């Protein structure tokens, strides 16, 4: 290696060291950790406080605190008249609120539907259809649903009719079976009764003949004749009584038998009814499932056609600036008209609330407070504060990114509890932020008083 070469290498090596050092300077950090090894941290609260718009945040917060204080220190009615006036006022305010919400909901629906109809007509025009997109398909879908419902109802009726016929048949059969069984039992008992009658007659036959022979004797004294006749009558009475006892027992037996058969028949009928009902339900469920699947397939096909038509129309509109402009115009017109109506209705609603508060304050001889209006005002201010804070934080984050890149930091934390080798870039960011113009427009003076749920949008509900 000659001297020139060595000198060149030395020069280049020095240059390399200088370059590295410069690189470190350019990025505000050294590779050996003197600038925190590429990590920084920032006190976000401090930076946000340095933002030109932070005073607006404070103002909004002060207004919120003030309104909350007013709400907490509302005058409390002392007398019955005052309490009644407050209750009446609150009831009237609630009615006014309800009317306002209903009115606005109706107008939102109206403008939403009007916009949807106008847009659909324009889409149809763009796709060359004669009717608004979806109208014909809607009719088709409705017909499919109606037909399916009718077929299902017919099937249901048919099954119920078959069920009725089957159960009537079961009832008739059970009745016949029971009739036959009861008849057989009755015949059996009657035969037993006849046999018993014969047995009794046979048993008393010789005594009866003997008594009858005595009666044929003409010499029989009147007293004896009366005695024999009495004995003969006793035999007949006794036999008749015994027969009657048997018949009564048989009748009771037959009644028990009949009752048992009827219970059995009712249970069998019920079992048949349950089985029939289950079978019918199973069949209906199966049919319903089948119908639903068919409907789903058919309606899905229609849905696909509808989506395709909408896509075609939208594609046609996308290529047609005139149509696009018309859709925007429809939307803007609807939005503008709704907003005018909303603002008008809101002003009237707020006026109504104020008048109600005044009216009932006069009745109560004290200043009553509209807590809902106060609450709405607090909510609106809080929303403004949130928006403003978010905008400030977004700007701050962007500036932190700039500072971090300039300093060669790979990561920047906030909310740190303590620092070691990491670099605190808060001051740098504060300076950068303080230099920003107060570009975010303030809206703290235009806090709307209306209910928060009444955002002026025709399509939003």
């Amino acid at each position, binding site marked *: 290696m000659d001297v*020139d*070469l060595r000198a*060149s*290498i030395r020069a*280049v*090596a020095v*240059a*390399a060291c200088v*370059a*590295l050092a*410069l*690189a*470190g300077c350019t*990025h505000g*950090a*050294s*590779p050996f*950790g003197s*600038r*925190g*090894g*590429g*990590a*920084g*941290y*920032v006190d*976000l609260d401090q930076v946000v406080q340095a933002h030109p718009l932070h005073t607006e945040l404070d103002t909004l917060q*002060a207004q919120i*605190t*003030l309104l909350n*204080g*007013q709400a*907490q*220190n509302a005058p409390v009615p002392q007398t019955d008249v005052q309490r009644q006036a407050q209750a009446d006022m609150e009831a009237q305010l609630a009615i006014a609120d309800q009317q306002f919400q209903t009115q606005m909901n109706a107008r939102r629906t109206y403008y939403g539907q009007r916009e949807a109809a106008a847009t659909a007509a324009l889409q149809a025009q763009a796709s060359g259809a004669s009717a608004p997109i979806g109208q014909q398909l809607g009719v088709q879908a409705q017909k499919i649903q109606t037909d399916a419902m009718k077929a299902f109802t017919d099937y249901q009726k048919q099954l119920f009719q078959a069920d009725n016929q089957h159960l009537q048949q079961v009832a008739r059969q059970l009745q016949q079976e029971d009739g036959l069984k009861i008849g057989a039992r009755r015949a059996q008992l009657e035969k037993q009764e006849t046999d018993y009658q014969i047995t009794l007659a046979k048993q008393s036959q010789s005594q009866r003949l003997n008594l009858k022979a005595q009666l044929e004797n003409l010499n029989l004294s009147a007293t004896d004749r009366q005695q024999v006749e009495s004995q003969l009558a006793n035999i007949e009475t006794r036999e008749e009584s015994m027969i009657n006892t048997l018949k009564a027992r048989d009748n009771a037996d037959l009644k028990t038998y009949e009752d048992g058969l009827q219970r059995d028949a009712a249970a069998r009928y019920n079992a048949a009814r349950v089985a029939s009902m289950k079978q019918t339900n199973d069949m209906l469920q199966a049919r319903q499932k089948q119908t639903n699947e068919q409907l789903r397939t058919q309606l899905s096909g229609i849905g696909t056609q509808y989506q395709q038509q909408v896509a075609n129309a939208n594609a046609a509109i996308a290529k047609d600036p005139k149509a696009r402009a018309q859709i925007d115009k429809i939307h803007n017109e609807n939005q503008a008209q709704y907003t005018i109506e909303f603002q008008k209705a809101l002003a009237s609603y707020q006026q109504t609330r104020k008048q109600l508060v005044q009216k009932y304050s006069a009745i109560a001889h004290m200043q009553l407070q509209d807590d809902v209006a106060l609450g709405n005002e607090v909510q609106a201010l809080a929303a403004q504060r949130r928006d403003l804070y978010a905008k400030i934080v977004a700007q701050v*984050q962007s500036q*932190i*990114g700039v500072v*971090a890149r300039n300093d*060669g*930091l*790979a*990561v*920047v*934390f*906030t*909310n*740190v*509890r*303590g*620092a*070691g*080798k*990491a670099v605190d870039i808060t001051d740098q960011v504060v300076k950068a932020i303080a230099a920003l113009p107060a570009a975010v427009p303030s809206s703290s003076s235009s806090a709307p008083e209306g209910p928060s749920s009444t955002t002026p949008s025709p399509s939003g509900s």
Partner: protein
Amino acid sequence: MHIRFVSAIAFAIVAAIALAPQALATDVLDIGFVDQAAIGGLPQFVAAQQQFSQFRAQTARDFQAAIKGKSQSDQQRIYGDFNQRLAAKQHELFDPLLGRAQTAIALVAAQKSLSIVVDKQIVIFGGQDITKDVLTTIGQQGVIVPPVQTPPPSSIGYVDQTQIDALPKAKAAADAFQAARQRLSQDLNKQLAGKSQAEQVTIVQQFNNQLKDEQKKDIQPLNDEIQKAISDVAKKKKLLLVVDQADRVYGGTDVTSDVLALIK
């Protein structure tokens, strides 16, 4: 030969310059962050939250019915029972979900060789956003297999504030500030009554200033002491910085005991 050698060295210089910022960043490439709100927004978490809300509402109704006509001590006992029921339900619903999320975070962190994962809210610039990977991992079917290796030593520390708050001197400071705040709030309400709007604005400003003064008097000295202790520990352990444990999701270096030892 001579020219080629010099050119090679010149190229090395250019490369050194080009690579310099990356060399700076090597220390902090192992820091990840995750959007915990996005995990909380997953359908299974939302469903569990809804279920828990319903259970809480029902429990509140049951509690009201249970304390009717009961003595003060019975009411307190019942309150304790119901709170336990709520806590048990919360564990039952959320523990499996949180466990799965934690395993997913550990797995993604291991795959990306991260030494710490923190909540997205505390990283303003840089760091590796692993939210998407974590959500994908949680959404996968079946069991998530946890990583074999533990996270590598991290240059980011974390401290458990709840342990610091439990120190007697911290409790005393918090109580003193709370009492002052209560006293000032009562005064504020009295002062606001019957005043005009302009007067009320001034009164509220005075209240805010008084509250700040109280905070400086009661809380600030201890806060300064704690922050100094944390910074001292960070420097001693050659850490980049220390975050709150509430913001740390996975990994990191726990310095709580060192900090407690310094401020006790």
